[in-house]
């Protein structure tokens, strides 16, 4: 667990992602990056790819036109031809312009070819509300891709997880959607954490219990894991003990760890930033009910974003997001 690691330097999420890209490019010539504005001097709009084009050349850190379909299409073809492209979609919402390449092609080509042509690419994207970008630059759309067989989906919550999972993603033989919540990029105080150097990979499909507890299981991923931890801390003062399970990868999903935790606590709250309706939490909740119905002390609760587009005004944007208070209320509803 990253919280207990004091041996390694504390990095931000952006620095950890940068380090993973650097390590992967150093290890394997077939790894290359493509996306808008990712090369020097800017090194990406969030500076996540800073320095990489200088180190590896602009043939491997390829700045593209504003052309998402061309970016993902080129990544698909190059991946089939044996490369390991890491494509960047600047913001998750923009994936709507190239979803055909993501779902119909990256996601289905291995299957349609009877396994002859794997598509080992990564799509990195930044996402999330909280920065006043409004409805078209703030969404979390992981459910779209979780719903498409053939694509793996990763949402890290800490810098160490981001680095380890991104390295695994790059060397994985399937297309991987890697979601980075931009609120965490450069906020070392709230979201920074120690990161081990070198080629340290974290396997997919292994959830991380970020806090142990006995009364209720909070299942989450990405930035909201931190909100769950804050809720757990708060409720501990009232004698309610929360276990926080960080899924880390949604496809594959470590259901075994979730079910083991909930069968211990008998109660679960699933938490994510994406809108609640048909969000990944709906799937999780359903799976928990299917497997543990008779054992549950209360129905599984869902906490997610409001079922609305994301508003601009600070107060409304904050109301849109699932907050610690919402998670706390959900826990209290079932621990009564």
């Amino acid at each position, binding site marked *: 667990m990253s919280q207990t690691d004091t041996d390694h330097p504390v990095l931000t999420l952006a620095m950890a992602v940068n380090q993973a890209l650097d390590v992967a490019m150093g290890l394997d010539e077939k790894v290359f990056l493509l996306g808008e504005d990712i090369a020097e001097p800017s090194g990406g709009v969030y500076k996540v790819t800073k320095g990489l084009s200088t180190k590896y050349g602009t043939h491997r850190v390829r700045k593209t036109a504003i052309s998402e379909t061309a970016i993902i299409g080129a990544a698909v073809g*190059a991946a089939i031809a044996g490369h390991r492209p890491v494509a960047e979609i600047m913001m998750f919402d923009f994936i709507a312009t190239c979803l055909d390449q993501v779902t*119909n092609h990256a996601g289905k080509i291995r*299957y349609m*070819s*009877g396994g002859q042509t794997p598509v080992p690419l990564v799509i990195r994207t930044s996402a999330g509300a909280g920065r006043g970008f409004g409805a078209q630059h703030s969404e979390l759309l992981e459910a779209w891709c979780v719903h498409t067989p053939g694509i793996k989906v990763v949402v890290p919550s800490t810098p160490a997880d981001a680095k380890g999972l991104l390295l695994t993603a790059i060397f*994985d033989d*399937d297309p991987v959607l890697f979601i980075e919540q931009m609120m965490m990029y450069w906020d070392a105080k709230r979201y920074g954490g120690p990161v081990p150097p070198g080629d340290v990979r974290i396997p997919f*499909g292994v959830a991380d219990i970020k806090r142990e507890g006995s009364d209720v299981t909070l299942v989450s991923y990405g930035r909201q894991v931190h909100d769950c931890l804050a809720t757990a801390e708060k409720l501990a003062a009232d004698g309610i003990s929360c276990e926080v399970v960080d899924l880390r990868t949604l496809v594959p999903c470590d259901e075994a760890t979730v079910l083991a935790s909930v069968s211990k606590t008998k109660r679960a709250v699933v938490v994510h930033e994406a809108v609640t309706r048909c969000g990944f939490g709906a799937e999780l909740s359903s799976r928990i009910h299917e497997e543990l119905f008779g054992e549950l002390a209360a129905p599984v609760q869902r906490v997610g974003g409001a079922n609305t587009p994301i508003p601009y005004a600070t107060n409304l944007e904050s109301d849109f997001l699932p907050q610690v208070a919402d998670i706390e209320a959900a826990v209290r509803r079932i621990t009564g």
Partner: protein
Amino acid sequence: MSERPDAPDRDTLLAMFEIQSRIKLCDERFRSMLTSGQIQLIYYSPRGQECISAGWGVHLRPDDYVVTIYRGLHDHLAKGVPLRELWAEFLGRATGTCKGKGGPMHITHPESGLMVTTGIVGSGIPIANGFGLAAQLNGTDQVTVVNFGDGASNIGAFHEGLNMAGVWKLPVVFVCQNNLYGEHTPMAMSTPVEYISERAASYGMPGVTVNGNDPVATWKVMGEAVARARAGEGPTLVEARTYRFHGHLMGDAMEYMDKDERKAAMEADPVPAFRAWLLDNGHATEEQLAELEETITAAIDDAVEFAMNSPYPDADELYTDVYADLTVSK
């Protein structure tokens, strides 16, 4: 029809005729078996467009890449996808190119360099750039040929794809097989330029329109485009004008097509015309061509028998090949 000073050597001419005949005879077999009810599938006939695939086919090496579309039988055959596996895939059998899991709209046969067949209009274009980019990064001189229709030149993927290829000077030949219709819509109703090749101007690459029913002219234009790509000089957009003999898909009533226009196009059928030209100009004898056609017919007989006698995929195949390493269930 007189001799052409611009014609290639006899071997190349015969190689083109071989590809054309393979396509024509294969298509005829599919349509007759569909009509008689021996087989059932959604079938997009490429009949009428044979010269185009043969035109690039003879310029490509086995390690060159081809990307095509649902109307792709002619392209599959021109790139050398073997008949048995191709027929078996069309019939959804375990012995097919993709174990029966892709079907006619998704033929893939990497050993032949047939990399992707897509059912989404225009989407192969950006993917072809990826193959071109791989060759460029690897420093090989492999060429990628991507085929699509006139209708596809109106979708965003076409424009984004050509733009990227133009900026990066990718070794890709964009082959627009302009059969004058996109589904039920004539080109003039969907496309405000007279020649699709004009669109190349926006993307910093040469655009050429050629009579795609003229095998010699098509061979020449394709040869120049392939050579340009192979030499690292960048992409070309080739618009090859042709005609779709049998409508959008098998069973199409074709009410939206002009009967006389179609009749005239079919009377000018490019494959028999090329055959007659080869004979008239002494490039081949009747016996030679008849033998070639018999050989192809026998190979088709064999492929049909192979496919019809092949098993359907095992039930377990539903769940394989979704991911490299994850188990999937219902």
